[in-house]
Protein backbone atom coordinates (compact mmCIF):
# COMPACT_ATOMS: atom_id res chain seq x y z
CA UNK A 1 0.00 0.00 0.00
CA UNK A 2 1.37 3.43 -0.94
CA UNK A 3 2.39 5.68 1.92
CA UNK A 4 0.44 8.93 2.24
CA UNK A 5 2.16 11.90 3.85
CA UNK A 6 0.85 15.10 5.39
CA UNK A 7 2.87 17.76 3.60
CA UNK A 8 1.19 20.75 5.21
CA UNK A 9 -1.71 21.85 7.35
CA UNK A 10 -3.61 25.12 7.67
CA UNK A 11 -6.33 26.42 9.95
CA UNK A 12 -8.19 29.64 10.43
CA UNK A 13 -8.76 30.89 13.93
CA UNK A 14 -11.83 29.11 15.24
CA UNK A 15 -14.40 31.48 16.66
CA UNK A 16 -17.03 33.98 15.75
CA UNK A 17 -16.55 35.77 12.44
CA UNK A 18 -20.13 36.14 11.20
CA UNK A 19 -19.26 38.55 8.41
CA UNK A 20 -16.58 36.41 6.79
CA UNK A 21 -17.63 34.43 3.73
CA UNK A 22 -17.03 30.72 3.56
CA UNK A 23 -14.78 31.12 0.56
CA UNK A 24 -12.58 33.59 2.44
CA UNK A 25 -12.31 31.26 5.44
CA UNK A 26 -11.33 28.29 3.30
CA UNK A 27 -8.90 30.34 1.22
CA UNK A 28 -7.10 31.41 4.39
CA UNK A 29 -6.76 27.84 5.65
CA UNK A 30 -5.57 26.69 2.23
CA UNK A 31 -3.02 29.51 2.03
CA UNK A 32 -1.56 28.41 5.35
CA UNK A 33 -1.53 24.77 4.28
CA UNK A 34 0.36 25.57 1.06
CA UNK A 35 2.82 27.78 2.96
CA UNK A 36 3.37 24.97 5.47
CA UNK A 37 3.73 22.31 2.76
CA UNK A 38 5.98 24.04 0.27
CA UNK A 39 3.88 22.38 -2.45
CA UNK A 40 2.98 24.26 -5.63
CA UNK A 41 -0.73 24.89 -6.15
CA UNK A 42 -0.30 23.78 -9.75
CA UNK A 43 0.59 20.28 -8.54
CA UNK A 44 -2.77 19.70 -6.83
CA UNK A 45 -4.71 16.89 -8.51
CA UNK A 46 -7.98 17.14 -6.56
CA UNK A 47 -9.86 19.07 -3.88
CA UNK A 48 -11.83 17.04 -1.32
CA UNK A 49 -13.91 19.57 0.58
CA UNK A 50 -16.17 19.06 3.59
CA UNK A 51 -19.20 21.21 4.39
CA UNK A 52 -22.49 20.46 6.12
CA UNK A 53 -24.88 23.41 6.30
CA UNK A 54 -23.81 25.81 3.58
CA UNK A 55 -27.21 25.63 1.94
CA UNK A 56 -28.73 27.05 5.14
CA UNK A 57 -25.96 29.38 6.22
CA UNK A 58 -24.92 30.92 2.92
CA UNK A 59 -27.65 29.79 0.52
CA UNK A 60 -24.79 28.10 -1.28
CA UNK A 61 -24.78 24.49 -2.37
CA UNK A 62 -22.26 23.21 -4.93
CA UNK A 63 -19.45 24.75 -2.91
CA UNK A 64 -16.50 22.64 -4.03
CA UNK A 65 -15.65 24.46 -7.29
CA UNK A 66 -16.07 27.79 -5.52
CA UNK A 67 -13.60 26.69 -2.85
CA UNK A 68 -11.10 25.41 -5.41
CA UNK A 69 -11.27 28.78 -7.13
CA UNK A 70 -10.88 30.61 -3.81
CA UNK A 71 -7.87 28.46 -2.94
CA UNK A 72 -6.26 29.18 -6.32
CA UNK A 73 -6.26 25.63 -7.59
CA UNK A 74 -7.57 24.25 -10.86
CA UNK A 75 -8.59 20.62 -10.54
CA UNK A 76 -11.59 18.36 -9.99
CA UNK A 77 -13.30 19.46 -6.76
CA UNK A 78 -15.91 17.54 -4.79
CA UNK A 79 -17.88 18.33 -1.66
CA UNK A 80 -18.17 15.59 0.96
CA UNK A 81 -21.08 15.71 3.40
CA UNK A 82 -21.32 13.48 6.44
CA UNK A 83 -22.65 15.97 8.99
CA UNK A 84 -19.91 16.68 11.55
CA UNK A 85 -17.66 14.07 9.92
CA UNK A 86 -17.66 15.80 6.52
CA UNK A 87 -13.98 16.79 6.55
CA UNK A 88 -12.98 13.47 8.09
CA UNK A 89 -14.43 11.57 5.19
CA UNK A 90 -12.94 14.10 2.74
CA UNK A 91 -9.49 13.29 4.16
CA UNK A 92 -10.25 9.57 4.07
CA UNK A 93 -11.23 9.76 0.41
CA UNK A 94 -7.99 11.63 -0.31
CA UNK A 95 -5.89 8.99 1.44
CA UNK A 96 -7.53 6.21 -0.55
CA UNK A 97 -7.19 8.06 -3.85
CA UNK A 98 -3.47 8.70 -3.32
CA UNK A 99 -2.93 5.08 -2.28
CA UNK A 100 -4.62 3.95 -5.48
CA UNK A 101 -2.12 5.89 -7.54
CA UNK A 102 -4.81 8.06 -9.11
CA UNK A 103 -3.38 11.23 -7.55
CA UNK A 104 -0.16 12.45 -5.95
CA UNK A 105 -1.33 15.69 -4.32
CA UNK A 106 -4.78 16.34 -2.82
CA UNK A 107 -6.01 19.34 -0.87
CA UNK A 108 -8.51 18.11 1.73
CA UNK A 109 -10.36 19.86 4.51
CA UNK A 110 -13.54 21.78 5.03
CA UNK A 111 -15.32 24.90 6.13
CA UNK A 112 -18.36 25.89 8.11
CA UNK A 113 -19.86 29.35 8.49
CA UNK A 114 -22.34 29.25 11.36
CA UNK A 115 -22.49 32.40 13.46
CA UNK A 116 -24.13 34.45 10.72
CA UNK A 117 -27.24 32.45 11.63
CA UNK A 118 -29.18 33.23 14.80
CA UNK A 119 -28.82 30.63 17.55
CA UNK A 120 -32.33 29.24 16.85
CA UNK A 121 -31.56 29.04 13.12
CA UNK A 122 -28.23 27.30 13.80
CA UNK A 123 -29.97 24.92 16.21
CA UNK A 124 -32.47 24.13 13.48
CA UNK A 125 -29.77 23.64 10.85
CA UNK A 126 -27.78 21.30 13.11
CA UNK A 127 -30.82 19.29 14.16
CA UNK A 128 -31.39 17.96 10.67
CA UNK A 129 -28.36 15.71 10.91
CA UNK A 130 -30.76 13.53 12.92
CA UNK A 131 -33.54 11.41 11.42
CA UNK A 132 -36.09 13.87 10.06
CA UNK A 133 -39.19 11.70 10.41
CA UNK A 134 -38.52 9.95 13.69
CA UNK A 135 -36.34 12.38 15.65
CA UNK A 136 -36.53 15.98 14.38
CA UNK A 137 -40.33 15.83 14.24
CA UNK A 138 -40.30 14.51 17.81
CA UNK A 139 -38.56 17.66 19.02
CA UNK A 140 -35.05 16.26 19.17
CA UNK A 141 -32.29 18.85 18.94
CA UNK A 142 -28.60 18.06 18.46
CA UNK A 143 -27.89 18.58 22.19
CA UNK A 144 -31.11 16.70 22.95
CA UNK A 145 -29.92 13.65 21.03
CA UNK A 146 -26.64 13.52 22.96
CA UNK A 147 -28.61 14.12 26.15
CA UNK A 148 -30.64 10.98 25.41
CA UNK A 149 -27.35 9.10 25.01
CA UNK A 150 -25.96 10.59 28.24
CA UNK A 151 -29.05 9.58 30.21
CA UNK A 152 -28.93 6.11 28.69
CA UNK A 153 -25.26 5.91 29.70
CA UNK A 154 -25.95 6.98 33.29
CA UNK A 155 -28.80 4.46 33.56
CA UNK A 156 -26.75 1.63 32.07
CA UNK A 157 -23.31 2.21 33.54
CA UNK A 158 -23.48 4.92 36.20
CA UNK A 159 -21.55 8.15 36.29
CA UNK A 160 -22.92 11.63 36.71
CA UNK A 161 -22.78 15.23 35.54
CA UNK A 162 -19.67 15.91 37.60
CA UNK A 163 -17.76 13.20 35.72
CA UNK A 164 -18.73 14.93 32.49
CA UNK A 165 -17.78 18.34 33.87
CA UNK A 166 -14.19 17.18 34.31
CA UNK A 167 -14.02 16.56 30.56
CA UNK A 168 -15.06 20.15 29.81
CA UNK A 169 -12.57 21.47 32.36
CA UNK A 170 -9.74 19.38 30.87
CA UNK A 171 -10.42 20.43 27.28
CA UNK A 172 -10.70 24.12 28.19
CA UNK A 173 -7.35 23.90 29.96
CA UNK A 174 -5.79 22.30 26.89
CA UNK A 175 -7.09 25.12 24.68
CA UNK A 176 -5.43 27.91 26.66
CA UNK A 177 -2.14 27.96 24.68
CA UNK A 178 -3.76 27.05 21.32
CA UNK A 179 -3.77 30.16 19.17
CA UNK A 180 -6.54 28.73 16.95
CA UNK A 181 -8.95 27.98 19.81
CA UNK A 182 -12.27 29.73 20.31
CA UNK A 183 -12.03 29.61 24.12
CA UNK A 184 -8.48 30.10 25.40
CA UNK A 185 -9.62 30.16 29.00
CA UNK A 186 -10.01 27.75 31.87
CA UNK A 187 -13.31 26.89 33.53
CA UNK A 188 -14.14 25.09 36.77
CA UNK A 189 -16.27 22.05 37.56
CA UNK A 190 -18.58 24.34 39.51
CA UNK A 191 -19.10 26.59 36.50
CA UNK A 192 -20.03 23.61 34.35
CA UNK A 193 -22.49 22.25 36.91
CA UNK A 194 -24.08 25.66 37.52
CA UNK A 195 -24.50 26.58 33.84
CA UNK A 196 -28.02 26.74 32.40
CA UNK A 197 -29.48 23.43 31.27
CA UNK A 198 -29.80 22.96 27.52
CA UNK A 199 -31.12 19.41 27.41
CA UNK A 200 -30.91 17.51 30.67
CA UNK A 201 -28.55 16.09 31.81
CA UNK A 202 -26.43 18.38 29.60
CA UNK A 203 -25.86 22.06 30.34
CA UNK A 204 -24.41 24.90 28.32
CA UNK A 205 -20.82 24.04 29.31
CA UNK A 206 -21.24 20.41 28.27
CA UNK A 207 -21.71 21.61 24.71
CA UNK A 208 -19.29 22.75 22.05
CA UNK A 209 -19.83 26.30 20.78
CA UNK A 210 -21.14 27.44 17.42
CA UNK A 211 -18.06 28.25 15.38
CA UNK A 212 -16.86 29.69 12.09
CA UNK A 213 -13.69 28.21 10.69
CA UNK A 214 -11.87 26.20 8.05
CA UNK A 215 -9.20 23.54 7.82
CA UNK A 216 -6.96 22.49 4.95
CA UNK A 217 -4.48 19.64 4.60
CA UNK A 218 -2.06 19.01 1.75
CA UNK A 219 -1.68 15.26 1.36
CA UNK A 220 0.98 13.82 -0.93
CA UNK A 221 2.26 10.44 -2.03
CA UNK A 222 5.55 9.28 -0.58
CA UNK A 223 7.12 9.36 -4.05
CA UNK A 224 5.99 12.95 -4.64
CA UNK A 225 7.50 14.01 -1.32
CA UNK A 226 10.80 12.34 -2.17
CA UNK A 227 11.00 13.68 -5.73
CA UNK A 228 10.15 17.23 -4.65
CA UNK A 229 12.19 17.21 -1.47
CA UNK A 230 9.12 17.92 0.66
CA UNK A 231 9.64 17.70 4.42
CA UNK A 232 6.61 15.67 5.54
CA UNK A 233 7.45 13.51 8.56
CA UNK A 234 3.84 12.60 9.40
CA UNK A 235 2.08 9.77 7.56
CA UNK A 236 -1.54 8.67 7.60
CA UNK A 237 -1.09 4.93 8.06
CA UNK A 238 -4.68 3.93 8.73
CA UNK A 239 -8.13 5.12 7.75
CA UNK A 240 -11.48 3.63 8.70
CA UNK A 241 -15.15 4.47 8.43
CA UNK A 242 -18.35 3.13 9.91
CA UNK A 243 -22.06 3.83 9.58
CA UNK A 244 -25.06 3.14 11.76
CA UNK A 245 -28.79 3.73 11.67
CA UNK A 246 -29.47 7.45 12.00
CA UNK A 247 -32.18 7.30 14.65
CA UNK A 248 -30.96 6.54 18.16
CA UNK A 249 -34.16 4.59 18.78
CA UNK A 250 -33.08 2.09 16.16
CA UNK A 251 -29.71 1.32 17.74
CA UNK A 252 -29.25 -1.77 19.85
CA UNK A 253 -27.65 0.23 22.66
CA UNK A 254 -28.19 3.99 22.94
CA UNK A 255 -24.99 4.53 24.95
CA UNK A 256 -22.62 2.86 22.52
CA UNK A 257 -21.36 3.92 19.10
CA UNK A 258 -20.49 0.83 17.04
CA UNK A 259 -19.91 2.86 13.86
CA UNK A 260 -16.84 4.35 15.52
CA UNK A 261 -15.70 0.94 16.68
CA UNK A 262 -15.93 -0.32 13.11
CA UNK A 263 -14.00 2.71 11.87
CA UNK A 264 -11.33 2.29 14.52
CA UNK A 265 -10.88 -1.41 13.88
CA UNK A 266 -10.46 -0.72 10.18
CA UNK A 267 -7.88 2.01 10.84
CA UNK A 268 -5.96 -0.05 13.42
CA UNK A 269 -5.79 -3.00 11.04
CA UNK A 270 -4.46 -0.87 8.18
CA UNK A 271 -1.81 0.71 10.39
CA UNK A 272 -0.94 -2.58 12.09
CA UNK A 273 -1.35 -1.08 15.55
CA UNK A 274 -3.56 -1.66 18.60
CA UNK A 275 -5.28 0.82 20.92
CA UNK A 276 -2.42 0.35 23.40
CA UNK A 277 0.07 1.62 20.81
CA UNK A 278 -1.64 5.02 20.51
CA UNK A 279 0.20 7.81 22.35
CA UNK A 280 -2.23 10.70 21.85
CA UNK A 281 -5.74 11.19 20.43
CA UNK A 282 -8.10 13.89 19.23
CA UNK A 283 -11.69 12.66 19.62
CA UNK A 284 -15.05 14.13 18.68
CA UNK A 285 -16.25 15.81 21.89
CA UNK A 286 -19.16 17.86 20.53
CA UNK A 287 -20.65 17.22 23.98
CA UNK A 288 -18.85 15.99 27.06
CA UNK A 289 -20.61 12.61 26.89
CA UNK A 290 -19.36 12.23 23.31
CA UNK A 291 -15.75 12.04 24.54
CA UNK A 292 -16.72 9.15 26.81
CA UNK A 293 -18.49 7.31 24.01
CA UNK A 294 -15.51 7.96 21.72
CA UNK A 295 -12.90 6.60 24.12
CA UNK A 296 -14.93 3.45 24.65
CA UNK A 297 -15.63 2.96 20.96
CA UNK A 298 -11.97 3.12 19.93
CA UNK A 299 -10.94 0.57 22.52
CA UNK A 300 -9.26 2.82 25.09
CA UNK A 301 -11.85 1.79 27.69
CA UNK A 302 -14.42 -0.98 28.04
CA UNK A 303 -18.05 0.12 27.65
CA UNK A 304 -19.04 1.82 30.90
CA UNK A 305 -15.47 2.38 32.08
CA UNK A 306 -14.65 5.65 30.31
CA UNK A 307 -16.90 8.02 32.21
CA UNK A 308 -14.44 8.80 35.00
CA UNK A 309 -11.29 8.97 32.88
CA UNK A 310 -10.94 12.76 32.96
CA UNK A 311 -11.84 13.02 36.65
CA UNK A 312 -9.18 10.39 37.43
CA UNK A 313 -6.60 12.33 35.44
CA UNK A 314 -6.13 9.55 32.89
CA UNK A 315 -6.73 11.75 29.86
CA UNK A 316 -5.28 15.08 30.97
CA UNK A 317 -2.31 16.78 29.32
CA UNK A 318 0.15 15.31 31.82
CA UNK A 319 -1.25 11.76 31.56
CA UNK A 320 0.29 8.89 29.60
CA UNK A 321 -2.19 9.32 26.75
CA UNK A 322 -3.61 12.86 26.56
CA UNK A 323 -6.99 13.30 24.88
CA UNK A 324 -7.88 16.47 22.96
CA UNK A 325 -4.72 18.46 23.55
CA UNK A 326 -6.05 20.96 21.00
CA UNK A 327 -8.92 21.79 23.33
CA UNK A 328 -11.23 19.51 21.37
CA UNK A 329 -14.47 20.59 19.80
CA UNK A 330 -15.54 21.70 23.27
CA UNK A 331 -13.03 24.52 23.69
CA UNK A 332 -11.23 24.82 20.37
CA UNK A 333 -14.59 25.08 18.60
CA UNK A 334 -16.62 23.08 16.12
CA UNK A 335 -17.09 24.52 12.64
CA UNK A 336 -18.94 21.36 11.65
CA UNK A 337 -17.65 20.76 8.13
CA UNK A 338 -14.07 21.71 9.04
CA UNK A 339 -13.63 19.68 12.23
CA UNK A 340 -12.36 16.41 10.78
CA UNK A 341 -9.59 18.27 8.96
CA UNK A 342 -8.81 20.34 12.02
CA UNK A 343 -8.21 17.14 13.99
CA UNK A 344 -5.71 15.97 11.36
CA UNK A 345 -4.02 19.38 11.38
CA UNK A 346 -3.74 19.45 15.17
CA UNK A 347 -2.47 15.88 15.39
CA UNK A 348 0.11 16.62 12.71
CA UNK A 349 1.34 19.64 14.66
CA UNK A 350 1.40 17.64 17.90
CA UNK A 351 3.46 14.84 16.36
CA UNK A 352 5.81 17.17 14.46
CA UNK A 353 6.53 19.09 17.64
CA UNK A 354 5.28 22.50 16.53
CA UNK A 355 1.99 22.56 18.49
CA UNK A 356 1.94 24.67 21.68
CA UNK A 357 1.03 21.45 23.53
CA UNK A 358 3.63 19.24 21.84
CA UNK A 359 5.74 19.34 25.00
CA UNK A 360 3.17 17.02 26.63
CA UNK A 361 3.75 14.35 23.98
CA UNK A 362 7.38 14.82 23.01
CA UNK A 363 7.96 11.06 22.66
CA UNK A 364 4.70 10.35 20.85
CA UNK A 365 4.94 8.38 17.64
CA UNK A 366 1.33 7.33 16.99
CA UNK A 367 -1.77 9.51 17.11
CA UNK A 368 -5.44 8.82 16.47
CA UNK A 369 -8.23 11.09 15.28
CA UNK A 370 -11.92 10.22 15.77
CA UNK A 371 -14.50 12.26 13.85
CA UNK A 372 -18.22 11.56 14.23
CA UNK A 373 -21.31 12.61 12.30
CA UNK A 374 -24.70 13.11 13.95
CA UNK A 375 -25.06 10.85 16.96
CA UNK A 376 -22.30 8.72 15.40
CA UNK A 377 -24.39 7.33 12.58
CA UNK A 378 -21.16 8.15 10.77
CA UNK A 379 -17.62 7.86 12.04
CA UNK A 380 -14.16 8.27 10.53
CA UNK A 381 -10.96 7.28 12.34
CA UNK A 382 -7.41 7.95 11.22
CA UNK A 383 -4.04 6.78 12.51
CA UNK A 384 -1.13 9.18 12.07
CA UNK A 385 2.51 8.29 12.64
CA UNK A 386 5.62 10.43 12.69
CA UNK A 387 9.04 9.43 11.40
CA UNK A 388 11.45 9.37 14.34
Amino acid at each position, binding site marked *: MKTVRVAGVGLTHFGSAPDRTGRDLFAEAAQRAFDDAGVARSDVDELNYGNFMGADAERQSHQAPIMADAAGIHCPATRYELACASAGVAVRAAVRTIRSGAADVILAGGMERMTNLSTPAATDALSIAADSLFEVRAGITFPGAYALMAQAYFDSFGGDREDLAHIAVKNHKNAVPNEYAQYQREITVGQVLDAPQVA*SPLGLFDACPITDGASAIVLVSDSYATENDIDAPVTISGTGQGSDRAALSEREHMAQTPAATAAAEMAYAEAGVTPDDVDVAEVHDCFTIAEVLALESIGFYEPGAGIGAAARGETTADSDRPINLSGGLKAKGHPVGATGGSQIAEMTRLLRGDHPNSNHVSDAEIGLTHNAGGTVASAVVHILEVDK
Partner: protein
Amino acid sequence: MSDRIKDTGYDEWLDAIEDGSGYYLQSPAGHGSLPPRRVCPYTGSTELTETPLPETGTIETYSVIYVAAPGFADDTPYATAVVTFGPVRLTGIVRGADPEHVETGQTVTVGVEHRKTSDDRVVVFRPA
Protein backbone atom coordinates in the same frame (compact mmCIF):
# COMPACT_ATOMS: atom_id res chain seq x y z
CA MET B 1 -54.01 19.69 9.31
CA SER B 2 -52.29 22.04 6.94
CA ASP B 3 -52.31 21.35 3.24
CA ARG B 4 -48.70 20.24 3.18
CA ILE B 5 -47.70 17.36 0.95
CA LYS B 6 -47.91 14.07 2.81
CA ASP B 7 -45.06 11.73 3.60
CA THR B 8 -46.70 8.53 2.43
CA GLY B 9 -46.24 5.68 4.84
CA TYR B 10 -45.22 7.92 7.71
CA ASP B 11 -48.40 10.03 7.77
CA GLU B 12 -50.66 6.97 7.56
CA TRP B 13 -48.69 5.55 10.48
CA LEU B 14 -49.35 8.71 12.51
CA ASP B 15 -53.04 8.54 11.48
CA ALA B 16 -53.23 5.00 12.87
CA ILE B 17 -51.62 5.95 16.18
CA GLU B 18 -53.96 8.93 16.43
CA ASP B 19 -56.91 6.55 15.93
CA GLY B 20 -55.65 4.24 18.65
CA SER B 21 -54.62 1.55 16.17
CA GLY B 22 -50.86 2.11 15.98
CA TYR B 23 -48.71 -0.54 14.38
CA TYR B 24 -45.19 -1.49 13.49
CA LEU B 25 -43.83 -3.61 10.68
CA GLN B 26 -42.84 -7.12 11.64
CA SER B 27 -40.63 -9.41 9.60
CA PRO B 28 -40.95 -13.23 9.67
CA ALA B 29 -38.00 -13.44 12.09
CA GLY B 30 -39.85 -11.21 14.55
CA HIS B 31 -37.88 -8.00 14.04
CA GLY B 32 -39.73 -4.71 14.17
CA SER B 33 -39.35 -1.52 12.16
CA LEU B 34 -41.31 1.63 11.35
CA PRO B 35 -42.76 2.80 8.03
CA PRO B 36 -42.04 3.78 5.33
CA ARG B 37 -39.87 0.70 4.86
CA ARG B 38 -39.56 -1.92 2.13
CA VAL B 39 -37.11 -4.35 3.70
CA CYS B 40 -36.44 -5.52 7.24
CA PRO B 41 -33.28 -3.67 8.36
CA TYR B 42 -32.08 -6.77 10.20
CA THR B 43 -32.76 -9.58 7.72
CA GLY B 44 -33.52 -7.97 4.39
CA SER B 45 -36.89 -9.74 4.28
CA THR B 46 -39.52 -7.97 2.20
CA GLU B 47 -42.37 -9.75 3.98
CA LEU B 48 -43.31 -7.01 6.39
CA THR B 49 -46.63 -7.31 8.23
CA GLU B 50 -48.45 -4.48 9.99
CA THR B 51 -48.65 -5.65 13.61
CA PRO B 52 -50.45 -3.78 16.45
CA LEU B 53 -48.22 -1.85 18.83
CA PRO B 54 -48.42 -3.07 22.44
CA GLU B 55 -50.81 -0.98 24.56
CA THR B 56 -48.01 0.36 26.71
CA GLY B 57 -44.30 0.94 26.43
CA THR B 58 -41.36 1.59 28.74
CA ILE B 59 -39.22 4.73 28.74
CA GLU B 60 -35.65 3.73 27.79
CA THR B 61 -34.07 7.18 27.99
CA TYR B 62 -35.25 10.77 28.16
CA SER B 63 -34.12 14.39 28.19
CA VAL B 64 -35.80 17.60 29.19
CA ILE B 65 -35.29 20.07 26.36
CA TYR B 66 -34.91 23.67 27.51
CA VAL B 67 -33.49 25.10 24.27
CA ALA B 68 -35.51 23.94 21.27
CA ALA B 69 -35.38 24.40 17.53
CA PRO B 70 -37.80 27.09 16.26
CA GLY B 71 -40.42 24.45 15.42
CA PHE B 72 -40.77 23.60 19.12
CA ALA B 73 -39.97 27.01 20.65
CA ASP B 74 -43.31 27.36 22.45
CA ASP B 75 -43.25 23.77 23.72
CA THR B 76 -40.26 24.22 26.08
CA PRO B 77 -39.51 22.85 28.50
CA TYR B 78 -40.60 19.45 27.29
CA ALA B 79 -39.40 15.92 27.93
CA THR B 80 -38.44 13.83 24.94
CA ALA B 81 -38.21 10.12 25.43
CA VAL B 82 -37.34 6.96 23.56
CA VAL B 83 -39.89 4.29 24.46
CA THR B 84 -39.78 0.56 23.82
CA PHE B 85 -42.97 -1.03 22.50
CA GLY B 86 -42.21 -4.72 21.99
CA PRO B 87 -39.62 -5.05 19.21
CA VAL B 88 -39.60 -1.34 18.25
CA ARG B 89 -38.75 1.94 19.91
CA LEU B 90 -40.58 5.22 19.33
CA THR B 91 -39.32 8.74 19.98
CA GLY B 92 -41.72 11.43 21.12
CA ILE B 93 -42.71 13.97 23.76
CA VAL B 94 -44.01 13.08 27.22
CA ARG B 95 -47.13 14.94 28.30
CA GLY B 96 -49.35 14.57 31.35
CA ALA B 97 -46.41 14.62 33.71
CA ASP B 98 -43.99 17.26 34.99
CA PRO B 99 -41.10 17.04 32.50
CA GLU B 100 -38.62 17.05 35.35
CA HIS B 101 -40.26 14.00 36.92
CA VAL B 102 -39.98 11.81 33.85
CA GLU B 103 -37.76 8.79 34.50
CA THR B 104 -36.34 5.79 32.77
CA GLY B 105 -38.53 2.74 33.31
CA GLN B 106 -41.87 4.56 33.44
CA THR B 107 -44.81 2.94 31.64
CA VAL B 108 -46.56 5.09 29.02
CA THR B 109 -49.17 4.94 26.28
CA VAL B 110 -48.70 6.47 22.84
CA GLY B 111 -50.84 8.91 20.91
CA VAL B 112 -50.50 11.67 18.34
CA GLU B 113 -51.16 15.28 19.32
CA HIS B 114 -50.23 18.73 18.07
CA ARG B 115 -47.27 20.89 18.97
CA LYS B 116 -47.90 24.04 20.98
CA THR B 117 -45.72 25.95 18.55
CA SER B 118 -47.56 24.95 15.40
CA ASP B 119 -50.31 22.69 14.11
CA ASP B 120 -47.77 20.01 13.21
CA ARG B 121 -48.36 16.57 14.66
CA VAL B 122 -46.05 14.95 17.17
CA VAL B 123 -45.85 11.53 18.79
CA VAL B 124 -46.88 11.95 22.44
CA PHE B 125 -46.46 9.60 25.37
CA ARG B 126 -48.63 9.81 28.47
CA PRO B 127 -48.25 7.98 31.78
CA ALA B 128 -50.22 4.74 31.68
